[in-house]
C-alpha cells in the first residue's frame, strides 16, 4: 500500500489526517517540522507528501516544497499542500498567478473533509 508522509507542526491535524488515511490502508508517517520532514522524505521515499505551510517560519512549507522539487530523486513525489492561511504570508494563493511559483500539485485550505482528502490522495497516487 502507498506510503504517505504528513509534515505538519499541529499534532491534532496530523492525528486526524493519519486516522482517515490509515482507515483506507495507507501507511502513514509524519514529521512535525519542515527540515525533519525533508529528511524523512529522503530516507523513506513516500508516494505522497501532505505538507503544511506555516511551521517553524511563516513559509517553511513553501521552502520545503522548493527543496523537494529541486532534488531530482524526490521531485516526482506529488505534494498536497494544506494551509490555514490566506494571502497574509505574501504569497497569492490563486492558481493562475502562482502556479509557476508554487511547486505543489494542489493547495487546499484547512480543514479538509475526510472524503475530499481521500479523493485527492487517490487522484495523486493514481497519476503517479
Amino acid at each position, binding site marked *: 500500500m502507498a506510503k504517505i508522509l504528513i509534515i505538519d507542526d*499541529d499534532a*491534532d*491535524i496530523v*492525528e*486526524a*489526517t493519519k*486516522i*482517515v488515511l490509515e*482507515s483506507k490502508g495507507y501507511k502513514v508517517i509524519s514529521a512535525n517540522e519542515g527540515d525533519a520532514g525533508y529528511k524523512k522524505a529522503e530516507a523513506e521515499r513516500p508516494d505522497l507528501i501532505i505538507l503544511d505551510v*506555516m511551521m517553524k517560519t511563516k513559509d517553511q512549507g513553501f521552502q520545503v516544497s522548493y527543496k523537494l522539487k529541486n532534488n531530482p530523486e524526490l521531485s516526482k513525489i506529488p505534494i498536497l499542500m494544506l494551509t*490555514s*492561511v*490566506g*494571502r*497574509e504570508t505574501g504569497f*497569492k494563493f*490563486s492558481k*493562475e*498567478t502562482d502556479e509557476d511559483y508554487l511547486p505543489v500539485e494542489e493547495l487546499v485550505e*484547512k*480543514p*479538509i*473533509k*475526510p*472524503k475530499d482528502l481521500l479523493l485527492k490522495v487517490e487522484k495523486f497516487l493514481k497519476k503517479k
Partner: protein
Amino acid sequence: MNQTTPLKEELLQRLEWLIYIRWAAVVFIITAVLAAIHIFKVALLGLPIYLIALFIAIYNAGFKIYLNQIRTKSLLTDNIRRFAITQSMLDIISLTIIIHFTGGSENPFIFYFIFHTILTSMLLSKKESYLQSGIVCILAIWLFIFEYMGILPHHSIKGFLGTDLYKNITYVAAISFVFTSTIFIATFFTVSVSEKLREAALKLLEKDRLKDEYVKMVSHDLKSPLASIQSLLEVILGRFAGPIDGKVKEILQRIQKKVEFLHHYTKDLLDLSRIRAEKNLNIKKFNIKEVIDTAAEIALPKIGEKEIQLNIDIPERFPDIEADKELLTYVFLNLIANAFKYTQSGGKVWVRLSQADNVLMIEVRDTGIGIPAEDIPHIFEEFFRANNVAKTTKGTGLGLSLVKHIIERHGGRIFVESELGKGTVFTFTLPPTKT
C-alpha cells in the same frame, strides 16, 4: 485604476471642490458686472473684467482636465500640493486685476479675498498659507499705492461711490491695515483649525490600522486551532475513530455547526483586516465572466435543497476589465451567495453587466426576502445584520462591508435597493479600464 491613500484622496476632493467654487465665482463675476452696469447703472469697464472671467474659466477647465488625469496616476502628495499653489496664485492675480478694474481700494469686494484665503489655507501647509496671505496683502497694498500715486490708472466706480477715496492717504492706510489684518487673522484661524483636524485624522487612521492589525493577529491565531478541532470532529463523525451512537452523534453535529460558524467568522474577520491592511491592489486585465463563473461555482453548492434559478447576463464581446481578480471574485461570491441565502426555493437570481460612458455597471438581483427599509442605510456597516435575518440565518455581518471596501478601493461605488418580501438589487460600478 484609482488607488489613493485617504489623505491624498481628501486633498484631491478639496481641489475638485475648489474647481466647482471657481465656476461659481466666474458666474458671480459676470452676473455682478452685468447687474452693476445694466441695473444699477454703475460706470464700469465691462470688457477687461469679462476677459479676466474668461481667463479664470479657461485655467479652471485646464485644472479640471489635469485633475482627472492625476487621479489615475500615482502622484505624490507634494505634487498635488504644488498644483494647489499654482491654482491659488492664478486666483490671487486674477482677483487683484478685477479689483483694479472695479475701483481698487474703493471696492468693498476686496474683502472677498477672505474666502479665497480660507479655502486655500485648508489645502496648503501652514507656511504656504501665511506666504500666500502675504502675497495677497502685498499685491493689494501695491495696487492701492500705485493707484494713489498715479502709477496705475484708477478706474472709479461712478454711480456707486462718488468720492475719490483712493486719493485719500488716511483712507488708503486704513483700508490697507484693515485688509491685511483681516486676511492674516483669517489665515491664523483656518490654519489652526485645519491643522488640528489633520492631526486628528492622522491619529484616527493610525488607530484604525492598529485595530486591523490586532484583529488580523487574533483571528489568525484563532483560525488554526479551529481548523484542528474541525478536522478531529470530522474524524469522529465520519466514524474513522470507531463507532458512535445516535445521541453522541447528534451532540457532536451541534458542536460541529458552532465550530463551523466560528471558523467562518474568524475567516471573514481575517479577510476584512487583511484586505483593509493591503496597501496595493494586484491589478490585472481579465475577462469578468471567468470571475463570475468561479464565484457562482463556489456559491452554488451552498443552495442546498433549494431550487433557485441563476441567470448570468453578460453582453457579447464584453471588454476585459482591470481589477484585483481575487478581490473581485470575493465581491461576486459574497453578493451571489447572499442572494442565494436569502431567496426561497423557486426564486431567481440575476447577475447583469452593462456599460455606460465607459463605466462598468454590475447588478446582482434576487427575488428574496428583501431588507427592511430602516436597515438599508446600515447594511454596509461592519457587523451589522438586518432585523429580518439576524435570528433566522447565520452570518457575520462582515461580507457586505468588505464588498463595499473592495469596490471603493477600485474607485467604484455600490448601491442597494430592496423591497421587503420582493427582493434586493445590489448595483456596483467600476471605473473605465485604460485601453
